[in-house]
């Protein structure tokens, strides 16, 4: 049960990185290939694919925050913008579908400036200390959020701890809409949360901000699974971070199957010092697409009950 997964491939991201190839469509359903130019190189991708897909095929790294393979692209973070020849503005690579003859630049001065500013805007208004993608992106785009000063407006606010399973720290929320999508039609269909308010004060909320136990929440934790910044976090992880004992370098990841029902969801058990600290599911798993229910996600305390106590 505590067999560590291959350590070389162990991702550091809170969001599980897709593993394995995407299932192939049957031969007869093959889509027309469309050729476009990305940074001067020709690449062909199937019709319906995005500029991001094309860039990835060429091995061009494109930063993304609000994008996730399993969710409908909302293209709101704008960190993936690229320069499309003939377009007045930059376009979001994550959602813009390829069209024949497109020519795209992914690293022009305009692209770099916009990406830099987006990262600076976020890092100067949101606590990104537990967002795994940020350090690398900030370095790559030479982002200096401190140039906006110290007294600028932020979304800082108290952590919401209203249940035993997970906490919501909206000072870390970049408003990527992923949790709303996972709670809604992209996964859970529970609709406990939505975007409320407008502008800089727009935020994720239940109706009238009632505590989660009064809302429609079913504690599947699929919102935690998609959160890119750690704003949504297992209570176990949050408590360990508060106590200063959270240490990902000492954690093992073990793939297993959920023991509860017959669906057979894949679980990845994250353990530290032989204690389970978090449970995720691989995004590319054909059963779960990264989603679990309350039992698979949170119902593992029984593992740690010693046999003597069981009697």
């Amino acid at each position, binding site marked *: 049960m505590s067999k560590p997964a291959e350590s070389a491939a162990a991702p550091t991201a809170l969001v599980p990185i897709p593993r394995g190839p995407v299932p192939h469509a049957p031969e007869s359903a093959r889509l027309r290939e469309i050729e476009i130019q990305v940074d001067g190189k020709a690449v062909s991708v199937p019709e319906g694919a995005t500029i991001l897909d094309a860039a990835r095929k060429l091995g061009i790294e494109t930063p993304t925050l609000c994008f996730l393979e399993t969710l409908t692209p909302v293209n709101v973070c704008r960190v993936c913008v690229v320069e499309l020849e003939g377009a007045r503005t930059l376009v979001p690579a994550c959602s813009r579908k390829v069209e024949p003859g497109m020519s795209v630049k992914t690293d022009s001065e305009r692209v770099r400036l916009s990406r830099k500013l987006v990262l600076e805007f976020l890092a100067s208004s949101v606590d990104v200390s537990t967002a795994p993608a940020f350090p690398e992106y900030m370095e790559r785009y030479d982002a200096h959020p401190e140039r906006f000063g110290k007294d600028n407006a932020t979304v800082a606010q108290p952590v919401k701890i209203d249940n035993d399973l997970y906490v919501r720290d909206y000072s870390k929320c970049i408003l990527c809409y992923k949790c709303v999508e996972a709670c809604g039609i992209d996964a859970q269909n529970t609709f406990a949360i939505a975007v409320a308010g407008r502008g800089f004060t727009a935020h994720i909320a239940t109706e009238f901000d009632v505590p989660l136990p009064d809302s*429609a929440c079913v504690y599947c934790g699929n919102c935690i699974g998609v959160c890119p910044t750690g704003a949504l976090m297992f209570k176990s992880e949050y408590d360990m971070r508060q106590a200063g004992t959270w240490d990902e370098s000492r954690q093992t990841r073990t793939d297993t199957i959920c023991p509860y029902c017959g669906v057979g969801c894949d679980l990845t058990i994250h353990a530290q010092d032989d204690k389970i600290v978090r449970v995720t599911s691989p995004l590319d798993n054909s059963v779960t697409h990264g989603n679990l229910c309350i039992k698979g996600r949170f119902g593992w305390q029984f593992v740690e009950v010693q046999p003597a106590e069981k009697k």
Partner: protein
Amino acid sequence: MDLHFTGAEPTPAERAAVDSVLGDPESGWDGGERCPELDGHTASDGQQRNLRRDRLLPALHAIQSRVGWITPGAVNYTGLRLDIPPAEVYGVASFYGMFSLSARPPVVAHVCDDIACLTCGAEGLCQELEKQLGPAGTPCSARRAVWQRSACLGLCERAPAAMITRAGETPRERVLAPASVGDIVSALNDAVEDRMPAQPDSLNAQLSVPQAGSVDLDLHLLRRIGSSNPSLEDYQRQGGYEALRKALDLGPDGVIREVAAAKLLGRGGAAFPAAKKWEALHVQRHLLKENPGRKHYLICNADESEPGTFKDRVLMEGDPFAVLEGMTIAALAAGAEQGYIYLRGEYPLAAERMQRAIHEARHADLLGDNVLGRGLKFDIELRRGAGAYICGEETALFNSIEGYRGEPRNKPPFPTQAGLFRQPTVVNNVETLVNVPLIIREGGAAYAKAGTANSIGYRVFCLSGHVVRPGVYEIAMGVTLRSLIELAGGVGGNGRLQAVLLGGAAGAFVSPKELDTPLTFEDTRAIGATLGSGVVMLFDDSVDLKKILLRIAEFFRHETCGQCVPCRVGVVRQEEALQRLVAGKSFATAAEDINLLRQMGQAMRDASICGLGQTASTAIESALSRWSLFS
């Protein structure tokens, strides 16, 4: 949907408000009284109810105007009736400025402190109100009323302006412009004591349209404005609906040909060729027959909220049937059977006039299943916005009508491919549509003789600020800015012109040196400006332009929808940088902050989803490039 609601129950008044929009509930599942024999053990009509999601905004309006705020019980009841999760109802309601999500007194005075009103004493007005009624946002008049500052109310020709709303069984709205402290205080008292006039406002043509009634002027777009109570009879007597008859003879192809010959460009700000939009729907017409679920929609964008813009309000108040006739001709061309007028929430008189005009037109067979007995099917529904500038952006407007948050969509797909309810949709501005009957009657080629080679036709401008006779003015395109100002009696205030804001908060400032610029799309573009929505706002040299820039920055901070990062945070950082510059408290040098502003402007222009973020910095940058305000 298996929805979960908190225990908050609606009061009878809240139920009545929602039912007034949705009709009575049909079963116990739908919010009615539970009756096991009739209701059975399962509910199966959720999807049917959810198909009416577009009634959400009208339902919220009904709750707000009946109860004075959107209560938890009312949110639950609305959610149940329309099968919408309560978190989403709350998310939508909290998007709009006119809805309060916490208890608020029934009477509210919205006092405009936006740029046009600022030049006409709004700040002094607010300070005096503070003395007499207490700070903005604090209940007054025995907690029955409250006053608050508001963004532009679109009454700039009568600045300073205020609007009073009273919630209750017979809700009332009242416009005060020009407003004095005394007017506002006594109107508040009247409202608290239930003595509000039924009529929200009246259009004074002499005041709002100084050209009105002049026999020497050959007016085209404004020629019918003048009557305090425009009727269908008067409209038809003055040649109204002749164009529609001619359009029915011409057919869709002929109409599109005439409008294309007239080279009519959209008057809402983006200047897109109107005929191209119609053509895009016209060529998809065959798909309507193949797919019975498919529909074409025509929307009249009357969500005029650009600070300094009031032309569409005046056109709707003064000549509502011209808007309807224009829409009907456009619908004929585009193959749309359903039209919507999305009207700015702060325009009570325009709402009343348009609603009555629609009613009269239906009775006269000018709208309905068989318009003029010629087999044309077209009807119009009026929808009121609820205080969100962004809903004037066409894709945000779709979301707003559909009952979602008014957040813009990514384009493509374009509205002509997938717009309202994901169906092919044409969106035209009010003024654009008012041009249409004129073009059809005169013929496209004749119309095209007015204006210049690339900017054709007539244009309505909104003059405000320090000008002798503010109001709506019609000119043929190509007249210089100087002549337009002279037409309005010249520079007002102290007579020494400092700057002109062209095109609104999303437009650009020009200096007195640029007054000889012809008012055309191409000439304004050449000087880095825009005609935008026709705003021409004058500032004399007593005005502190820095304060005007700050107010513009504050406006965008308040009105950004918050969806995309460059705009949501960019407009905040932009305002903070300007605050530092105005206070002389830059971290290093003013030049560095100005450089930062330009960089932010570039990123907002390049990376924002919609036109709001893309233009949120243009007015500020235009001022920085014309004057050394911070050296």
